[in-house]
């Protein structure tokens, strides 16, 4: 089943992590990378982060807030929340199937 984030191609993975981070509250770039590193163990490097951010903003999934000095925080939009919900639900279904099958698996 396709959802909106699949249209981001290779940036769908980083986008999921970014939206998950923003679901907690607005963050700027560096705070995003540290948060994602903390909860997912994934390091989003600057080029990848902003490639994903610019796509998410163009799709209307996030929006920029007032500047904080040179930093600009981003927050989740209702459309972004819906896209994240669909993406995570799909991932959960896949994970549940995989785990249940793994549960009954035994070495041959």
């Amino acid at each position, binding site marked *: 089943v396709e959802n909106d984030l699949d*249209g981001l*191609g290779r940036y769908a993975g980083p986008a999921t992590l970014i939206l998950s981070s923003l679901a907690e509250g607005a963050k*700027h*770039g*560096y705070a995003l*990378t*540290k948060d994602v590193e903390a909860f997912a163990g994934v*390091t989003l*490097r*600057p*080029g*990848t*982060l*902003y*490639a994903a*951010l*610019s*796509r998410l903003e*163009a799709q209307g999934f996030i929006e920029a807030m007032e*500047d904080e*000095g*040179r*930093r*600009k925080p981003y927050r989740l939009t209702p459309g972004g929340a819906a896209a994240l919900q669909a993406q995570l639900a799909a991932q959960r279904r896949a994970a549940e199937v995989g785990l249940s099958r793994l549960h009954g698996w035994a070495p041959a």
Partner: protein
Amino acid sequence: VSDDRRIRRALRCYPKAWRDRYGDEFAALLTDTIEGGGRGIRMWWDVARGGFVARVETTGLVGDAAGVERRTKVGTMTAFCAAAVFVVALGFGALAARNWRNFPLDEQGERYGMHTVGAGMSDWAPWMRGAQGIPIAAADAVRIGTWAICAAVVAAFGLVIVAWIRSTPGGDLRARWHRWGHPALAVAGPAVLFRLATLVQHVQRTWLYQDDHWAHRFLGLTWNWWFVALFDVLYLGALVFAMVSLARLARGVSLGRRLRRVLRIDAAATAAAMTFTAGAVIVWVAGLYAQAPDVLRDRLPPNAPTVGGVGGPGEAVPGFGGTAIGLFGSSRVSTMAVIGLVLLLGLALGVIGVRRAASRPRHQLT
């Protein structure tokens, strides 16, 4: 080199529009990352790669960063440029083949195969004979070791296909089938059907009724299948596709939204395909004319040799010159006039496609 200077250099990897929007905050992120100990070759590589991708996307060739109008324009222009490269490469191939009539047949199995094809099609529709030019040029290019020419042709043709898909509004190589499969199917479908019909004719003439070496027959059949299929797709497919697109354009705005999107795709794809075909015809005719000024007559000169059952005094001319003449008459002027009309029609369709695409908000096209 100080970090500030490195950051400024890194920002130059990105296009100006991107820098205007994200430059300050991106520089702040780089500063924070460096201060947090995240500096390293992988970080700078990631930044440079991101800048490159952003620049390519800004041109409109890939991604969704550019608007539909720019993507369509850039994609179409790329198709034009790629087609130009392609036909120039074919022109070199034609030059490499300029002595093809002089080679002894017994020592040139591949040429003999080519003319087995020619014998099979010599009485068929005049424009079908034009397809002989492609395998003849290809065989000679391979024979004299001009692999660079072959590689250029293949690479340029691949670029044409990619640019063609990209030139369609919402076109994306990774997109779902329905976004680009429609024009592809509409072009390939008639070509495949026609190829099946001509295959029967070919087998009848070259396989069953000619006393020839089996290897020559097989070679001829194989070359025929692969190379003439290409000709069919670009030539017959584009013509049929143009008529379908014109019919749809004539129906106006009463079509549903989905059909209107399909129509825009048709127009852009048809413009690219027709322009490419017309360009190929022009260059091919020019190449043949450079070899032998008599080629733009519909008959070979009296001293022309007979090759593999084809050619000789009074026989029809193979190649695109013969194609164009067979289709549009024996006059050079009328041939060029028709080719010019085809070009104009292709450009008109392209303009219509761009305008219609531009009149729609971006989110309705994807």
